[in-house]
């Protein structure tokens, strides 16, 4: 039902021998003759703010497969990566986006109600996250920032796991290994190096797994991100740098970070960069598949800039009215990633109202579950302060733990308050 490349493209991929093979032939999918039955292919409409320009790969600047109105446009370079996508899979992508948005909205509400301390909303970025997230294979590894709730969803992470850190009961705490989805990283840019190192390791292991590192337009300025480009290029690491350019870093517009489109950054490090319409889930799926397959074939890193928009506040603590105009948001609402796919599904596939109604119910159920789980989420016990500081123990931690326990015990007449 959902597009997971473990089922589709990657199935073909898995038949191929691992990395460093067949650098010439692009991909099995490229040869696929299956075309979308009703997808009228015409030349892409471009966002007016960016003049058409050639990427290093000779693609036109903004890769778009679905217009804001939900019309399918042809793209000779990238069509092949989604030609095999079935209507069911398209509905899967739609569902992913709706569920991600519903989850996100619930978290915003929970924050307002005081159940969470903070929440960074993904509103508007569903296509970038679902398109890229669904392009990954099970054995790929994802290094998110703190906003990739939609990617987490695609990776099969229980969304309630994401709430612990924003409720203040842990600093992440899910097992990164169970879904190959690393912990959220708050220090901007740091995770791009972890991703690069992980990818170097994957290559050393002789697998054809790839790694994807998420980061923002603001993060592009951090030295760590530049260093990750250098390491990835020098070691030809199988990593995709996926930049969600949502045009804002808290209150700063992208012009405070760069004066040229961010995807161009890659070229100076010796690997390709592509800008994709980040509100077009199909384009994001196609471009990320292309980039991941490059990685699998041993062609090294790629930078994908998903051009999108942060429709909400930076986090629930933020007040965007201080720094940006309302009409900016309005213009982006017209490019809503969910509406666009819905328009396509409604006009070009046999998706009936029942599907949408069922999904409504399903997403409401998700909201309810999230609410319940959060409200029931226990506070950690006090002693958790001292847990997992070290893997092999540490004498000072032991000493302080013992002192703390004794100190707590001295209030023995008071309730213990140990939570779990």
């Amino acid at each position, binding site marked *: 039902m959902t597009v997971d490349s473990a089922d589709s493209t990657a199935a073909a991929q898995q038949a191929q021998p691992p990395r460093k093979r067949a650098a010439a032939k692009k991909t099995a999918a490229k040869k696929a003759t299956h075309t979308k039955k009703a997808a009228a292919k015409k030349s892409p409409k471009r966002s007016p703010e960016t003049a058409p320009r050639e990427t290093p790969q000779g693609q036109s600047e903004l890769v778009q497969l679905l217009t804001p109105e939900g019309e399918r446009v042809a793209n000779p370079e990238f069509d092949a990566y989604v030609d095999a996508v079935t209507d069911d899979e398209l509905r899967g992508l739609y569902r992913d986006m709706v569920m991600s948005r519903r989850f996100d909205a619930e978290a915003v509400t929970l924050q307002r109600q005081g159940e969470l301390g903070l929440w960074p909303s993904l509103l508007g970025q569903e296509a970038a996250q679902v398109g890229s997230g669904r392009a990954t294979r099970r054995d790929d590894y994802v290094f998110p920032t703190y906003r990739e709730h939609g990617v987490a969803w695609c990776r099969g992470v229980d969304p309630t796991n994401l709430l612990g850190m924003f409720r*203040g009961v842990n600093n992440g705490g899910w097992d990164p290994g169970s879904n190959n989805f690393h912990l959220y990283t708050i220090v*901007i840019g740091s995770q791009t190096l972890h991703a690069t190192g992980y990818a170097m390791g994957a290559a050393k292991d002789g697998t054809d797994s790839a790694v994807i590192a998420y980061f923002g337009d603001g993060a592009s300025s951090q030295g760590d991100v530049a260093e990750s480009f250098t390491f990835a290029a020098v070691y030809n690491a199988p990593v995709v740098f996926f930049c969600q350019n949502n045009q804002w870093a808290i209150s700063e517009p992208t012009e405070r970070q760069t004066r040229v489109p961010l995807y161009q950054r890659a070229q100076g490090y010796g690997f390709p960069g592509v800008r994709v319409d980040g509100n077009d889930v199909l384009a994001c799926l196609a471009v990320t598949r292309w980039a991941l397959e490059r990685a699998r074939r041993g062609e090294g890193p790629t930078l994908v800039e998903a051009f999108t928009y942060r429709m909400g506040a930076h986090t629930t603590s933020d007040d965007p009215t201080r720094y940006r105009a309302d009409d900016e948001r309005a213009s982006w609402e017209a490019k809503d990633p969910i509406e666009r796919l819905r328009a396509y599904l409604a006009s070009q596939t046999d998706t009936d109202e029942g599907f949408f109604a069922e999904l409504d119910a399903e997403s409401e159920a998700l909201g309810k579950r999230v609410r319940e789980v959060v409200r029931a989420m226990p*506070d950690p016990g006090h002693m958790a*302060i001292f847990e997992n500081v070290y893997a092999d123990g540490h004498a000072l931690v032991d000493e302080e733990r013992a002192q703390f326990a004794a*100190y707590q015990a001295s209030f023995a007449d008071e309730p213990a308050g140990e939570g779990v």
Partner: protein
Amino acid sequence: MAVKKLPIAKAINESLRTALENDPKVLVMGEDVGKLGGVFRVTDGLQKDFGEERVIDTPLAESGIVGTAIGLALRGYRPVVEIQFDGFVFPAYDQIVTQLAKMHARALGKVKVPVVIRIPYGGGIGAVEHHSESPEALFAHVAGLKVVSPSNASDAYWMLQQAIQSDDPVIYFEPKRRYWDKSEVDTEAVPGALHRAVVAREGADLTLAAYGPMVKVCMEAAAAAEEEGKSLEVVDLRSISPMDFDTVQRSVEKTRRLVVVHEAPVFLGSGAELAARITERCFYHLEAPVLRVGGYHAPYPPARLEDEYLPGLDRVLDAVDRSLAY
């Protein structure tokens, strides 16, 4: 009117405003300090009034912020840099300790780098990871830097004025959980020396030494102890490098007992230095070892645990009792 009752955040805002007005070389730089006025609104309205050339939204790169501030200082400017949260200063740590701290000495005094780095620090605001840390010892250990932390609005105003006027780099730690605590600021007063500690409350039985956010806790502890008949003196250190050992020494020679309180982890925290130094200076006066109350040797915990992690009234009073029991 020169005397106003202000919250600390607003006192810092006024102090920045005064500095921008008085000296055209003063610049304010950092992430989101412009239109947004910073995530705590400390720089609110400054860009509007002084323009983008003086109140500068920077790229999201702390090393770049501090590194370019050094260059601007070499050119004659006096940049006041904001680091958005304590946990985000580390990308700039190299520029701070290898360049900012050492450049004056490297040049045998022939250049000055009067950069102020403002860092909202400490916990107690229910924040996520990296937003509640107290890294002051990591700067105070480094020669060439000065490190201060005000505990009230008046000091917030004046110590920032003095930090900006200083020809040395100053790391100015702002007690973020006290940002909205109000007290009187006399903007025409003659301030005390930047690096002097002050006796915030007199007492006879034991000295509590603290700075920044913990001063309030210590004052409350002293008030509570008074009800039990114990007379505690509270020293607000104000400056961590240099640390005013003389004032603490005088106090301890009187009270013969010292408890140091800070949010930072105890192990190698600034209390270790104060304990070692005061023990050396007051060896024959001390009736009890210097005790320390602070954070544990663990990452700052998730918000739901921070009340247990942070030194509070009870833990301070517990240490007072232990000291008095000697």
